[in-house]
């Protein structure tokens, strides 16, 4: 009787630990999905990067981004109201809710790349570093696409 009980207890403990571990590893850190940049002619003074940020355990904030391929980078949001296009600079960054996501998509939130625009041609990849308020910075390879 006793060994069975003990082994059951051990199994239960292992399962619990595993579950806890799997939980924390899936939602502990911020992850970046599908980063890409828009192919842009050389004459254009600006371009944009898009990506989806999956939030971690705690709410965080994307405060800035850096890339050697851009002169300056700013976080912007396009707001379309009644047919008018307006771009808004977001100096306070973009909120990433805990367990939620922040989607940077065409026609909405985007990372605006101003000046320089080094090799924004289809097929190229550009290293983009994302700086968060509390989490550690992450560098991702953004693929350049038409769009």
């Amino acid at each position: 009787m006793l060994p069975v009980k003990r082994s059951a207890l051990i199994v239960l403990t292992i399962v619990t630990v595993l579950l806890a571990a799997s939980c924390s590893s899936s939602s502990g850190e911020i992850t970046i999905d599908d980063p890409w940049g828009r192919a842009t002619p050389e004459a254009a003074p600006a371009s944009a990067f898009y990506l989806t940020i999956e939030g971690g355990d705690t709410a965080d904030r994307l405060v800035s981004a850096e890339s050697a391929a851009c002169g300056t980078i700013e976080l912007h949001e396009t707001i379309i109201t009644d047919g008018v296009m307006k771009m808004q600079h977001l100096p306070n960054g973009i909120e990433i809710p805990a367990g939620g996501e922040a989607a940077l998509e065409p026609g909405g939130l985007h990372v605006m790349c101003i000046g320089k625009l080094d090799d924004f041609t289809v097929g190229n990849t550009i290293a983009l570093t994302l700086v968060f308020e509390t989490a550690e910075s992450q560098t991702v390879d953004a693929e350049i696409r038409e769009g």
Partner: protein
Amino acid sequence: MNSRRLVWWIGIPGALLVLAVMAFAIFEPIQVLPRIRLSPGYLLTDQAGESFTSEDVRGDIVLYTFRHNDCGNDCAGTDETMLEVQDRLGEVDFGDTDVRFVTISFDPERDTPEALTAEAEMFGADGDQWRFATGRAAHLKNVIGAGFKVWYEERDDGTFAVDPTLILVDGWGVIRGEYEYRTLTSDADKIIHHLDILAEEIRNATGAAGLAYEAAHFFLCYP
């Protein structure tokens, strides 16, 4: 016998169809206001000194007048019409659509925000439903002269001459009515009637009813 029957089979429905189309065109069961042309886009400053643009009134029915501070008799007619239309708005069922009044001054030098505020007060305008605005002289020429096609000119002595006109614009930014104030009788009756027609069209803008209204445009069922 057979061929006659065949003629009946094709002829009757065909004739009915032609009759129906003709009846629609002749009796005009639905009336619409013509889509005259696009209303101009503009960037102006209102009586509060705030920026006021054509996009701020997108989705609303707007009645425009054009005047200046020292307009006097030139504008008396359009001013009175504007006031009368406001008083009688209750006669029309606008549903969810807002109705706004905009008076654009073509004399930005004298019509400062303070002067516009004084004008608004003179007309008892609340500043939200009825706004007074002006802008850069060159832009005003494009907006009022080229866009609304209302003639005005600065005389040598600095006063203005104007062809007093009211313009009705729908929520899609299309000019639907132009009322050149030329007679002694008020245009208010006509404008109220037109507002009624426009409100009816807006209520029926979608689905099958929308197609019937498009047909009314096609057959030029204009009042």
